[in-house]
C-alpha cells in the first residue's frame, strides 16, 4: 500500500506531467488523497519451479522468445498480481461523466502510477529476499509485453481467482479491475 503520499508525490507529478511549481500541483495532491481513501489493494504472490511455470503457462510461455530468453537460467519463477480494486475506475468515470475531465484523467493516471508503485515494491522485496539467499533475479515481465501474449493472463486468473474473488477476465483476457497488474520474475541459480 502507499504509505507516504509525500514521498511519491514528486515522482508521480513527473509521471503524470504536472509542473512541480504549477497551480495544478495542489489539485493533484487533493486527488491523490481522495484516491488513497478508495484503494482496496490486494496482492498475490507465488513462487513456482521452472517446470511448474512452463506447465501452468504452457503455450504462452513456450511460444514466447522473450520468456525463453528471460528465464534461460532460472530455476524458479515468482508469479505476482496486484489489484487496487474497482473504486478508482468508477471514480474516474464519474468525473468524466460530469465533464470534469482533468479530474477524470488524473485519477486514472494516478491509479496507473499507484499500481505500478505497488508491483515495483513487490519486485524490490523479491529481489532483496533472493539476494539474501544468494540468488539473483531477472527483471519483471508482464503478459502483453513483446511476444508474451496477453492471453497468459488467463493462467494468472485461474491461479488467483480464489484469493481475489472480485477479479474477472474478459474474453480478450483483460483483467478487471483495470488497475490490476500481473508479472513474472525469474530466480537465477547461483553462478549465472
Amino acid at each position, binding site marked *: 500500500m502507499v504509505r507516504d503520499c509525500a514521498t511519491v508525490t514528486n515522482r508521480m507529478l513527473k509521471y503524470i506531467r504536472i509542473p512541480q511549481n504549477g497551480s495544478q500541483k495542489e489539485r493533484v495532491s487533493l486527488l491523490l488523497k481522495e484516491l488513497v481513501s478508495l484503494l482496496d489493494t490486494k496482492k498475490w504472490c507465488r513462487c513456482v519451479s521452472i517446470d511448474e511455470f512452463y506447465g501452468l503457462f504452457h503455450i504462452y510461455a513456450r511460444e514466447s522468445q522473450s520468456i525463453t530468453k528471460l528465464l534461460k537460467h532460472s530455476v524458479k519463477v515468482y508469479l505476482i498480481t496486484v489489484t487496487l480494486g474497482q473504486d478508482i475506475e468508477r471514480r474516474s468515470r464519474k468525473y468524466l461523466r460530469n465533464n470534469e475531465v482533468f479530474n477524470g484523467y*488524473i485519477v486514472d493516471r494516478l491509479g496507473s502510477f499507484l499500481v505500478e508503485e505497488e508491483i515495483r515494491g513487490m519486485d524490490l522485496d523479491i529481489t532483496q529476499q533472493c539476494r539474501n539467499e544468494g540468488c539473483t533475479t531477472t527483471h519483471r515481465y508482464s503478459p*502483453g509485453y513483446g511476444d508474451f501474449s496477453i492471453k497468459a493472463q488467463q493462467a494468472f486468473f485461474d491461479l488467483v481467482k480464489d484469493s481475489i474473488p472480485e477479479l474477472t477476465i474478459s474474453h480478450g483476457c483483460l483483467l478487471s479491475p483495470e488497475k490490476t497488474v500481473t508479472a513474472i520474475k525469474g530466480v537465477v541459480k547461483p553462478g549465472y
Partner: protein
Amino acid sequence: MAKIMMHHFVFPINALPSCQMVDVDIDDILWNADIKFKALRNYYKRIDADILFYFHDAVIQAEAMGAKAKYFKKMMPAVAATAQVVSLPDPAQVPRMAVNANVLRRMAGEFPDKLRSALVYGPFTVAGQVAGEEALLRKLIDDPKEVLSLLEKTCDFAMRYASYLIEAGANLVWVSDPLSVLIPPDQFREYSGVYLKRIFESFPSLPSVLHICGDTYQIVQEMVRTGVRGISFDNCMDLLVVEDEIPDEVYVIGNIDPVEVIELGSPDEVVSRTSDLVSMMALKDNFVLSTGCAVPPSAPIENVRLFLETGRKSFADIRPHIPLLSKISRNVYAGNGEETRQGVAAALEDGVDPLTIISSGLTRGIRKGSAMYEAKRCFLPSILLMVDTFYKGFQLLEDRLDREKTQKFDIVLGTVKGDIHEIGKNLVKIFFETHGHRVVDLGVDVNADAFIEAYLNYRPSFIGLSAFTTESKKEMGKVISAFHREGIRDVLFIVGGAAVNHEVSRSVGADGYARDAVRAVSLVEKLLKQSKSYI
C-alpha cells in the same frame, strides 16, 4: 502609426493572378509597363484589396546584380545561373526595375488611398541567388566573412531598390526573405536579422512587413527584433502558437493557404476557411488577414474576391463583440471556470450569437491550448483543465443551440473487440465534442459487426478505433477488412491507443493515426480537407 494603417486589413500576397486580366504571356507582362499596369488596374478594381502589389518576381534583384534569369510564358522567372561578377547598378538603369517604378507611379494615381508595397527580396535570399543557395549555406561554415561581405552588397542594393520604388509611389516596405528560414536559428540574427533591421530602419516613417516562408517558430523573436511593423506568416504556421510572442504594436499577418484554398479550393472552402481563421484571430487587435504566401498566377480571381469579401464580413460580424469574446477565450485558456461562466453570461446578455461565443470564445481557448500542445509548449493536463472550463461555459449555451447547425460531422468511436480500455477513447470523444463534432461512442470491446451497424445508422465521416493491447490491434485490421468486404469505402478510419503507431496504422489499412486526443482532432480535420480536395 502602423497600427492605425493596417488594422484588420485584408489582402492577398502579390498580384500574380492579374496576369489573367491581359491576353499576353507572363514574360511580356514583366517587361512592359503598359501591359503590367493594365493587368494590375483591372485586377485590383475587381478584388479591392487593402494592400497592393506590383506583380513582382523573385529574381529581379539577383538578375540586376549579375545572376542569369530564365523567363517563361506561363510561369514566373527563375535564376538559371549564379553571378560571375557581383555588380551594384542604379535601379533606374535596370529595365525591369524601371518598369516596376513606372507601374507604381501610375498605381499611386489610380489607387491613391491604398497601401502600395515596395516589395524587395531580403539580403540573404538574394545572396543565395547570386552565389548559389547551397554554396552560400556551406560558406556560413567555411568562409563566413565572404558571406558577410556579399550580404553587405545585397542589403545595400535592396535598400536602393526599395528607395527607388518608394520615390515612384510605394508607401509600404515589404521584404520577402524565403531563404532565411534555412539559417540555423542561433545564426539568424548575424546573417539575416541585422540586415533586415537596417532596411526597416531606413524607412522609419513607412509601415513595413517581413515575410519568411516556411516554419519560423524558432525565429519569431528574431523577426520581431528587426523592428518590422508586421510579420507575415506562412500557412504552415499556427498563428495561435505565435500570437503571444508578437508585441501589440506589431501586426500578425496571415495565413490562408494560397494553393490549397485559394487556387484549388471550392468557393465553399474559401468561405469556411477564411471565416474560421478570422473567427480565431480577429480577437487580436493586431491581426491582419492575408494569404500564407503569394497566390499563384492561375488561381481563380473569383476565389480571391471571395476571400476578401468573406474576410471583411467576418471581421465586421465579430468586431463589436471582441472585448467579451477575448475575455472568454483568455479565461478558457487559463482554466478559469467561474470567470468563463460569467463571460459567457455577459456575452449572451449583450446579444452575442451562441455560435459565435462557442467558435470565437470557448473553442478558441481550446484550440490555442491544442496548438500549444502540438508545438510541445504545454502538457495534456493543462489542456484538460481548459476542457473543464469549456464545459462550464458551454452549459449556459447548450439549450440555445441548434445541434444540426453546430455539429460539423459525425464520428463513430469504439475500443475494438477484446479490449476494455476506455480512458483514451473517452478523451478523444471529449475533444471532438469541444470542437463541435457529434460523436457516437460504441464503448469498449466492440466487434466489426457493431461498427458496421453504427455506420449504417449514422453514416459517419470517420470511424475511430482504439486499441491498448498488442492482441487487440490485430482486431483493427479485421474491422477495416469487414467494411471493405461489405463494399463500404466512403468512411475514413483513424486509429489510436497505446498499442498503435504509424506502422500499425498502415499495416491495418487505416487512413490515419493519432498519438493522442488532441492530435486526433487535427488529424480528422486534415483528412477531411484532403478528402474534399479530391472531390
